[in-house]
């Protein structure tokens, strides 16, 4: 008996629609968030993430109404983020029904935000989202939807984030995102083995084998994907059945 490896579908939203990009650009419409949330809840998703990916670009307010509608469909945890800059933004998202809040760019600009959120909601509700891009023999932290490079190195930023009170790291490989060429095992393993909070791997999923690999070799606690679930390329139920057959502990829906 131990903790199950989690499978987490992610809804990147732009307004009221779910969108998906390749390497963070070339956005296209991928569906209605409420319908997708209902489907994933029924299929056995372990959690759902809803990100407002337009927020840091256009400074649009987070789409609370979408969160509210999605939360109403779920009997599983909901994480929301995108454009969370201050405690008040997080409060609004939590009030709308999110169990956890992700912070990314704003935390890089002002790391104290992580502590403020953790003190208010508890560290289990604070997810530090890190977009990392390979840079020589290390990984560079990117912000603003993966477009702006920073001085931060990903492993040390993740460590610092956990010290400041983040209860989880949502780690996206900017290089792999949208490519369907597999998760970045080296990046995920480097962070997961260093940081004493759970790590959600993201970016690059296509085949069930990619998930087996990121859990076994990447030491991920959870794996997140978007388009393969939205497009029906991979059902969550059959993915979990595959993982169970590989002796990887997952929660099989009844």
């Amino acid at each position, binding site marked *: 008996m131990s*903790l*199950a490896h989690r499978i987490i579908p992610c809804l990147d939203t732009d307004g009221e629609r779910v969108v998906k990009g390749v390497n963070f650009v070339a956005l296209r419409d991928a569906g209605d968030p409420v319908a997708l949330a209902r489907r994933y809840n029924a299929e056995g998703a372990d959690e759902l993430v809803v990100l407002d990916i337009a927020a840091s670009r256009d400074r649009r307010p987070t789409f609370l109404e979408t969160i509210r509608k999605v939360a109403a469909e779920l009997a599983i945890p909901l994480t929301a983020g995108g454009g969370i800059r201050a405690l008040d933004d997080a409060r609004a998202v939590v009030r709308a029904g999110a169990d956890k809040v992700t912070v990314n760019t704003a935390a890089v600009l002002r790391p104290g935000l992580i502590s403020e959120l953790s003190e208010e909601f508890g560290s289990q509700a604070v997810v530090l989202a890190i977009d990392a891009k390979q840079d020589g023999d290390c990984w560079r932290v990117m912000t603003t939807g993966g477009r702006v490079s920073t001085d931060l190195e990903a492993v040390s930023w993740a460590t610092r984030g956990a010290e400041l009170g983040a209860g989880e790291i949502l780690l996206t490989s900017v290089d792999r995102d949208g490519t369907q060429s597999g998760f970045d095992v080296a990046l995920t393993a480097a962070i997961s083995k260093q940081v004493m909070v759970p790590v959600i791997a993201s970016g690059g999923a296509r085949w069930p084998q990619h998930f087996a690999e990121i859990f076994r070799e990447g030491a991920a606690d959870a794996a997140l994907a978007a388009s393969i679930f939205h497009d029906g390329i991979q059902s969550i139920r059959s993915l979990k059945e595959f993982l169970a057959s590989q002796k990887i502990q997952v929660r099989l829906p009844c």
Partner: protein
Amino acid sequence: MKISLLDYGAGNLPSVERAFQRLGVESERISTSDGVAKASALVLPGVGHYGALIRALDRDGLRESLTGAIERGVPFLGICLGLQALFQKSDEATDLKGLEILPGSVRVMSGAVKLPHMGWDQVQSKVGSRLLEGIDTAAYFYFAHSFAVPYRGDDPPLETRATCSYGGEFVAVAEKENISAVQFHPEKSGDAGQRVLENFLRIAA
């Protein structure tokens, strides 16, 4: 029957409310000792910091009315921090007293494992549990916490109905007379969690 949800600003209150809605049960939010005194079934939700919960109960003058209602036999369900609050004290806020209804203390979980204990885990049944009745023993429940009440074998003897093991064995389900409490989040635990809430409704009826 109407379920009274204690509202002191807990993050998971709306989720708990929605979970009861899905079961077709009427619920109300209460935040005064008068509300607690009139309640016919009480739910104490909670997630986050133990100190925030205890301070809120004391600030709003709810401690006495809550312990009074529990002693009178009003059906009670504590969720996550709502379970922890029933015990004597917690490592998370050593200057505060718990509700002191159950023996034992809340301790920080072992540093040998990743914390928070976050995600879906299984529980091990100890003594027949009313809350877990009809639920597959292999079912998973959603946990999100870094503190827990360590399980100490037969002490306390009967309150612990199920445990979970994560860096050590801790109390996952406690029951005593009208008191029911779970360390996991039934409102976030899919079908299995829904069954737990249904079982509580049956107990409370």
